[in-house]
């Protein structure tokens, strides 16, 4: 991981067979305004695409978007794959339409935290909230 003396580096992307690009662009823009170094790998990204980009850029966090309702399936094993690739300590964040249908958010969040994500966000979360949490979770050294 970087020493976070300078900008915080985040890898941002949309996981799986998912073409939803609008939220991704908005999030990238909001993060850049707030001084983050954004490595946006865009739509149709696999877990491996996120992890490869994280290693090459010494990223501090992975911001995983999943908008198509298949998040639970697509995110399975993400933390384990990070550990396997030598970036097991990376800050892992997920958000979007993570599950199909109306489900109780607390339970959904619990499932994703149990999977090894540090933060999980429900649909419609404000980028401001995500950015405030990132600043709190990844203080500059």
């Amino acid at each position, binding site marked *: 991981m*970087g020493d976070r003396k*300078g900008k915080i*580096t985040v*890898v941002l992307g949309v996981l*799986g*067979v*998912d*073409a939803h690009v609008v939220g991704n662009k908005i999030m990238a823009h909001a993060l850049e305004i707030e001084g983050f*170094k954004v*490595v946006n*790998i865009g*739509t*149709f990204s696999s877990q491996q695409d996120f992890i*490869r*980009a994280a*290693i*090459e*850029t*010494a*990223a501090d966090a992975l911001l995983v978007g999943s908008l*198509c*309702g*298949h998040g639970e399936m697509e995110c399975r094993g993400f933390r384990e794959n990070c550990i396997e690739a030598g970036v097991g300590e990376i800050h892992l964040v997920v958000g979007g339409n993570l599950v199909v249908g109306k489900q109780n958010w607390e339970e959904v969040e619990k499932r994703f935290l149990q999977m090894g994500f540090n933060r999980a966000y429900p649909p419609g979360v404000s980028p401001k909230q995500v950015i405030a949490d990132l600043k709190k979770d990844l203080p500059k050294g």
Partner: protein
Amino acid sequence: MSLALLIDFGSTFTKLLAVDLAAEEILAYAQSCTTVETDIMVGLRRALDLLPPHLQGAPYECRLSSSSAAGGLGMITIGLIPELSAEAARRAALGAGAKVVKVYSFRLSTRELEELVGLKPDILLLAGGTDGGNREVILDNARLLAASRISCPVLIAGNKAAADEVQSILSAAGKITLLTDNVMPEVNVLNVEPVREMIRKIFIERIIESKGLKKAEEFVGGILMPTPTAVLRAAQLLSQGTGSEKGLGDLVIVDIGGATTDVHSIGAGNPVQPGVVRKGLPEPLTKRTVEADLGLRYNAGTILKLCGEGRILQHASLFQKDLAPRLEKLSQCVEVLPQTAEDQDLDFALATCAARAAMERHAGSIEALWGPQGQYYVQYGKDLTGVEHLIGTGGIFIHHRQAGGILRGTLFSPEEPFSLRPKTPNLYTDARYCLFAVGLLADRYPESAFRIARKYLRRWN
């Protein structure tokens, strides 16, 4: 009359082309075996003796040459992630005309380091980390290389936040180092030009001498570039044109040789069908791929293994039992030119298979994915379906009467709609073997070089 003598010290043959620049005419072509093992000048003189007498001692305005003798420009590239900086470094080296002997990624292991030293590259390209990204791995690799017996120049093109330290570590250990911009400054951003330019500089300043070509350089006045770079330069000139000559636009050149088959493409290769998303490392506008397993002589046996007897026998009039021994003989006697119609047919069959496989590997592909919202198409590599011009170069295209057929075999097929090979390009062959010469002349005489290429390329459709 303003004469130019263009020379290519090839791996097998030394080729000469005498050109009248004022009249924009090819006057003569000659070739003889390359003699780099003993004295490069012997083969050159033999080839010169084969020119018409009035051209042997003519007052040439310039003598320029390219070389792929003594194994070509052998490079090893090192990056961090195989699909990112290691791939970016590999592409930069290929685009500089190098033969990429091996690509390493992540931290080098002891075994890899031993192998690397044993492979004796001419240049080592050390990359890894985006600018401001991972520093540890490139620094560790620098320390490992510093402590190794590697003696070739090391070109550093990685994370700029680590590059100075990398250079200090290597220089302190007495290694020859050169520093340039990061070949992948950000994820999925390629920056190959500074690396290519630096490789060309090292080639001229250091490699010529270490390959035993210095003597030849005194005669020719300058070995400017590796042979593949000359062909790539010709491709650029033809595609982009000059001040007064309009370029042809996007094009592909297939170069079939005894040891490798190269494919060069000029063009962005963006998706042409709506709704297709492009993924992966971006492609350089000027892209070269080298297929080291597809050569008509050294690798005749490999072509058989790859394409199967059926495909080769489709074009060659041979008995099945004779095929393997014939190919074995070809791979042992690499200087043999086809003598009989049967020999020519076999070469045609091998070339057709090699060109087809090389084009398939060079061209991009489409993958169909199903998601909750339906089907999506993702493109990897370049879409070459709309390319307007396809050119074949190499000995087979001079000698064979149906050489255009080799190119036809590389085209798009509706049975494989996801392989983005050219659909309906104009087909040309380099029937006078002038493309390397055009590349050599491109910087000094771009207008004449462009028109000579146009004049002597033979159109097949």
